[in-house]
């Protein structure tokens, strides 16, 4: 299988993971078995990390508060930022952790039931961690687009239903 074909399979799955291997095989003119094997390989090697569904929780009626927290840390000898990052990303409230260049070190996205919940988490769990120097918490007010997907895309299909 060529590198381009491999990339195509991954791109198709990233866009819509509900397509069956049979469909993907048809789309790329490949034997089904090759697609199935490749997907299994990718799952085993953790290139395909997880199949999840992007849900607009707000629309589903869930109260969820998200905050973006800038964290400054003191890097550790030998392990750098990784151990501190791990201490942070292990918390289930933490949804994303990124190591950053620039004015601070880690971007931490935290979700909670309400603002108090998130603020408590930061004050009690995050700020008190050894090697965490400081934190700055920004609450998300509205999500427009996430992971490349626009939540309320108003671009309906306006085409005529039949045209030459």
């Amino acid at each position, binding site marked *: 299988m060529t590198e381009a074909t491999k990339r*195509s399979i991954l791109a198709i799955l990233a866009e*819509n993971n509900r397509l069956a291997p049979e469909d993907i095989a048809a*789309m790329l003119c490949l034997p089904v078995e090759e697609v199935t094997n490749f997907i299994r390989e990718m799952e085993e090697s953790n290139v395909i990390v997880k199949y999840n569904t992007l849900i607009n929780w707000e629309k589903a009626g869930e109260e969820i508060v998200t905050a973006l927290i800038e964290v400054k840390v003191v890097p550790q000898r030998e392990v750098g930022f990784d151990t501190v990052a791990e201490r942070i990303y292990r918390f289930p409230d933490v949804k994303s952790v990124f190591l950053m260049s620039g004015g601070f070190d880690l971007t931490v996205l935290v979700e909670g039931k309400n603002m108090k919940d998130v603020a408590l988490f930061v004050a009690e769990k995050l700020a008190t961690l050894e090697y965490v120097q400081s934190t700055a918490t920004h609450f998300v007010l509205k999500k427009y687009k996430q992971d490349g997907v626009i939540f309320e895309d108003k671009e309906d299909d306006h085409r*005529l*239903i039949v*045209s*030459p």
Partner: protein
Amino acid sequence: MNPASFIAPVVRELPPSGIRRFFDLVAETKGVISLGVGEPDFVTPWHIREACMYSLEKGYTMYTSNHGLLELREEIVNYLAKNFALRYDPKREILVTVGASEGVDLAMRTLLCPGDEVLIPDPSYVSYMPCVTLAGGRAISVPTRAEEEFKLNPAVLESLITPRTKVLVLCYPNNPTGAVMTESELLSVAEIVERHNLIVVSDEIYAELTYEGKPVSFAALPGMRDRTVLLSGFSKAFAMTGWRIGYVATNADFLAAMVKIHQYTMLCAPVMGQMAALEALRNGETEKKRMVTTYDQRRRFVVAALREMGLDCFEPKGAFYVFPSIKATGLSSADFAERLVLEAKVAVVPGTAFGSSGEGHIRCSYATSTPHLKEAMSRIKDFLTTL
């Protein structure tokens, strides 16, 4: 007063589009998935729309030169050179039109004298024949067959040439069949064109949607540049149908003649569309490729699905249509399409809307999202088992 009696006979007798009646039927039915649409399902890429908004903010709301913005014509020339190895002079050999549609009309009106014959592959896009008739010419169908993948057969073509034959229309990749002709196949057509001193009107609006190998422009064949009126546009490859921008590339004499008609009937193509087209040519390559890749994946998916349900389906190599045979069902294409809408809620276009050689076939457009296609294929499959 009877208004109808004032209408010129040539217009009165023009047959209405075969799609119209079908459109009404589909529009009245609820919950239909349409594979009947002849335009991209993608909205014009954002960067193109954004560039147009910016041009409006800057006050670009005026007429342009009759030929179109020179900057745009220069970009068109570069684009044709880069993708099709064609050479044109932006000042004298390019005209920006209101869609390729205008180009078809201009070409026929410029070239035809009363009674001149125009050969048109059948099945083909619906506007060639009426444009020929309105220009005073006689449209002659050149039948093409599924067994030959709907390519033009040189022997059949030659057998229809008379002393009055003046123009040959080519449209590859083809709407409605998706057929593509290779360079060597086009060369045998070119040889006939040369021998009989014909002019070719080549509608290459789907050229970029060629899925195997590089597209070949008829005008790039030896000796064909000056015999060819090349028509193209932005509607398909850049998902810009509503902007109404196309272009003509041809020798300076033909072009000057076409500009005469264009300047009195159209004056110029809309400047907003021209600004958007400029952006499409300058920065549209990535988005164009993304769309082409998606079409290609859907094409394979649909062909595989149709074949699996037992329909004979030759593999289309271009455009965004498949043209399966439904002869095995014993139904005419019009009956099949009508029952499919009513009973299975899938709209396709009967092959006969594109000429009598389309009988026994239906046109399915895959300019529709993959989940929709999947659902449509499963509905067609269920429908077939009820026949």
